[in-house]
């Protein structure tokens, strides 16, 4: 093997020196491989769109259920972005490494969910966002959980299917006046049942993505 051209100073290759910088460096590389900066940009764009919609009083006629379409769509879209961000490009080479990967997956999902909550809650001035910040937190957390479950089961690139389906079901359920806590978007913001169900969905999604990761297409499980 040739050594020609190799940078003899390792510091120029990597800045990692101690434990904390190494953790930061690993986090940064993980985030880059999952396009998390792009995901954050998209979350900001969704938040901006919601802010414009609320400011301009975009509302769909047809009753209170229909008027939640735009905020709920924004929340579901944010959850979808979070779900597809879980998918990694490295396949089995990454899975066959040490202990950090599950924690990175968990941390990324939690951080993105928190970011989504932040931008969406900030998008709505007091009184304009149906249910206020608590409802945003509950809805985003619950739908992110569904997205993560989908990413774990169907594959990372299809993580968006869960939030999309839940959005349609929520709208139909709201229009029909359903009050089951599993339709948490239709419950009052401080309702315990809705919060518990959303929390269960969120916890299940986070557990699935931590323990199994997002299924990827890099290798089909076949003989060979």
């Amino acid at each position, binding site marked *: *093997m*040739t*050594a*020609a*051209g*190799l*940078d*003899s*100073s*390792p*510091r120029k*290759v*990597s*800045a*990692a*020196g*101690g*434990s904390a*910088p*190494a*953790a930061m*460096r*690993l986090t940064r*590389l*993980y985030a*880059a*491989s999952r396009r998390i900066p792009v995901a954050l940009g998209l979350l900001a764009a969704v938040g901006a769109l919601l802010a414009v919609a609320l400011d301009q009083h975009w509302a769909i006629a047809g009753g209170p259920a229909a008027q939640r379409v735009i905020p709920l769509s924004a929340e579901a879209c944010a959850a979808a972005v979070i779900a597809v961000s879980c998918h*990694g*490009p*490295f*396949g*089995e*080479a*990454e*899975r*066959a*490494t*040490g*202990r*950090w*990967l599950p924690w990175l997956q968990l941390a990324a999902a939690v951080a993105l969910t928190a970011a989504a909550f932040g931008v969406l809650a900030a998008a709505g001035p007091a009184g304009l966002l149906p249910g206020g910040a608590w409802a945003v937190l509950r809805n985003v957390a619950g739908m992110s959980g569904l997205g993560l479950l989908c990413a774990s089961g169907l594959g990372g690139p299809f993580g968006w299917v869960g939030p999309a389906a839940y959005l349609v079901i929520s709208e139909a359920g709201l229009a029909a006046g359903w009050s089951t806590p599993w339709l948490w978007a239709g419950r009052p913001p401080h309702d315990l049942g809705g919060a518990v169900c959303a929390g269960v969905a969120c916890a299940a999604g986070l557990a699935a993505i931590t323990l199994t990761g997002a299924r*990827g297409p*890099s*290798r089909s*499980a*076949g*003989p*060979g």
Partner: protein
Amino acid sequence: MNVELADLTRRFGRTTAVDQVSLEISAGVFGLLGPNGAGKTSLLRMMATVLPPSSGRIQLLGRDPGDYGPRREIRRRLGYLPQSLGYYPGFTVAEFVEYFALLKDMPPGQVPRAVAMAIERVGLGDRARAKLRTLSGGMLRRAGIAQAIVNEPELLLLDEPTAGLDPEQRMAFRALLREFGERATVIVSTHLVEDVGAACTDVALMDRGQLSFHGTPAELTARGEGSGAAGDAPLERGYTAALAAARAGAAGARA
């Protein structure tokens, strides 16, 4: 023994990819030969702890990978190059290797040097800052090898590592394998018998999920002598003869 397999079996639906394979492998370079679809990759994936066996027992580096704690320890000491390596095209070579070094839980202080060394060992020192999307297929393969060896693994699993390498790189790679084989267990799955002849101390031949030969390259070569088997080189003729004998034996057993 760094690798102990006992009656290891893996099924995919009705297909048995690996059929009751028993094997013990110590330090050195171990070649896993076989035709396409023989079950080499499935066996390697089980040893890489990413595919659980359907039945049988597996011990890696003295630990059972079925349990979480031991599996974690194994993975810290493992290097794995899958047949199909995924990569993020926006990473540089250095970032790619460093990412895996960090994931493998290497002491942070050692990471920069280990990354630089791994990149140099595969001959990509001058491309350390190049984005992966700009590399040729052979260079990508070498970047994959670099991530596998960055943690100085005690168990190095390489699936078709020389695919896409030019002759010069292939020779250098064989030297690298020999060097690693002095202190670690290196298992190379390949269908290129010349790689085995040049680098391996032990070799096994897989066919239809079963081990049909286990010995040294010299023993495999001896199988071909006077057999009239096809092949351009002695080891290739040995491979062909061993494969033909295994198939004849299997046919006889069925009859």
